[in-house]
């Protein structure tokens, strides 16, 4: 089921170079990224239901039992321009299995058609609906996301915390928390500076590059929930992610940074195909499960 890492690298590098390329139209980029999902398989017994969440389409992903007391709102990556719940179904399935949660993978509105704060509004509205509409205890709902979805998760958690509805935990995979910052590296295996800058511009709209809703790196981080951060050691965003983790900890956040030497940017999307990705998603799932169960006194005993 897992492919050898060198083969995955050999397939991924040219694919990303072809697809995440600002010289292609937005429509072509989106269509091509969707195609990359064709080789990905969620775990057995994954059940996907198409639902509406906060007025947006979403995939409700469970493995095994379809009703769970825990939920994870998943925000996909793709520079705020591409990506979809469909593309992240395998990751969502693996995450649902390990964390014993319902994973809601949200198709938030994308730029350039819908610049900031459209995605942020969709994410926070979705969280509120999980509590008010679907009946989840807010202490048992976490937010996770990768790349742009990771930055969006932080911005959403800020707004929700300020509204008195703090998520149980944050899971940030290669999070992009400062889209306005020019990267030091020209490219990594997945993304390149030119494409990143272009995406950041598409999403920013009329906001300032320092707007904390757009770039939570520049915002107040105090009071955010326990956070797990994954960074690949070779990725373009590594410095930014490391600085973000340090800022979060300085603000008193219980933040853990895990560096993954054999991974690359958002490689978690390959869960089920690449062993390292499956293991990394498991690490996230176990972390979220622990936080989602932390406030529960009626928990079934030892297992």
């Amino acid at each position, binding site marked *: 089921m897992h492919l050898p890492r060198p083969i995955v690298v050999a397939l991924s590098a040219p694919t990303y170079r072809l697809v995440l390329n600002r010289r292609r139209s937005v429509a072509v980029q989106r269509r091509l990224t969707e195609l990359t999902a064709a080789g990905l398989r969620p775990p057995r*017994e994954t059940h996907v239901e198409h639902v509406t969440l906060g007025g947006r389409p979403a995939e409700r992903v469970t493995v*095994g039992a379809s009703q769970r007391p825990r939920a994870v709102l998943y925000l996909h990556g793709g520079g705020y321009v591409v990506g979809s719940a469909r593309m992240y179904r395998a990751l969502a399935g693996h995450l649902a*299995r*390990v964390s*014993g949660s319902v994973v809601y993978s949200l198709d938030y509105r994308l730029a350039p058609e819908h610049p900031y704060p459209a995605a942020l509004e969709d994410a926070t509205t979705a969280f509120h609906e999980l509590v008010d509409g679907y009946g989840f205890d807010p202490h048992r709902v976490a937010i996770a996301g990768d790349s742009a979805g990771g930055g969006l998760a932080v911005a959403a958690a800020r707004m929700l915390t300020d509204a008195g509805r703090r998520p149980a935990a944050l899971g940030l995979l290669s999070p992009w928390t400062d889209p306005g910052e020019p990267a030091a590296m020209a490219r990594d295996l997945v993304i390149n500076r030119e494409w990143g800058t272009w995406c950041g511009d598409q999403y920013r709209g009329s906001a300032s590059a320092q707007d904390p809703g757009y770039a939570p790196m520049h915002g107040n981080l105090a009071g955010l929930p326990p956070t797990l951060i994954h960074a690949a050691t070779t990725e373009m965003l590594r410095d930014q992610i490391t600085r973000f983790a340090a800022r979060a900890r300085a603000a008193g956040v219980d933040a853990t940074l895990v560096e993954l030497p054999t991974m690359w940017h958002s490689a978690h999307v390959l869960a089920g195909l690449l062993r390292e990705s499956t293991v990394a998603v*498991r690490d996230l799932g*176990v972390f979220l499960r622990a936080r989602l169960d932390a406030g529960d006194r009626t*928990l*079934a*005993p030892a297992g």
Partner: protein
Amino acid sequence: MTSIAGKVAVVTGAGSGIGRAVAYELARRGAKLALSDVDAGGLAETARHARVIGADVYEQPLDVTDRDEFHRYAESVAAEFGVVNIVINNAGVAFTGEVVDMGYEQLERVMDVDFWGVVHGTKAFLPHLIASGDGHLVNISSLFGLLSMPSQSAYNAAKFAVRGFTESLRQEMLLSGHPVQVTCVHPGGIKTAIARNAGSVAGINQTEFAAFFDKKLAKTSAESAAKAVIKGIVGNQPRVLVGLDAKFLDALVRVLGARYQRLFTVLATRVMPSSAKTADPATQDAASQHVTGGDRVSA
């Protein structure tokens, strides 16, 4: 099974106590590990440390009382490693309370984890152990699966049941010629969080009982218990007694027969803390007949 190296081993309740110690010992001996616990935080810690030791680890939060979930888990472990050689059904909870005070739910809960959890693990993994061609099943009973103590009726019932179930299964495997060895383990007092995290009926001073357990009963470390478990696997022992207390009391009960009960009631009045012996009726309250403490432990 003569060697642990390279074998795939499943350990439930691996987030603390004996389960954690067994996981580390298996990791040191080169096994690949599938670890689970209902306490994901404790599980994450065990998994991380086992990886540092050098083991290939597959960790999954799991509630052993959930039958469907356990069977699904068995399939995912088999898919992950391709084979399953060793299963150690270790997850369990302690409970203290007299029959007259105990609610049915409390008794059922202890049975659900301590007995049904073991049955689920056995049933879910047995086909994989048979298919492996070299399998070993270890079910963790207790010293209290060999003898009874006042206020331990629920725990005694579950642990006696584990022993009966396991010893029957061992004979079935021998008769059928399936390549699966079966061991029932009876730890005496082991230094784990089990007594401190145990449930009790209202009125029993659990802290005092835990202090009594830790000081007077728990003389064996979880590490030496883990070594005894693995010795039992390598030596294909039908029964493993862990700790001098277990060995001594097991012998005593066999010498005395059913008369041991009389001796224990006499001893109980002298050794055990007074408040742990009988629930004070003055503090009894039907509404407060609940399990106290977060009993997410293994024993």
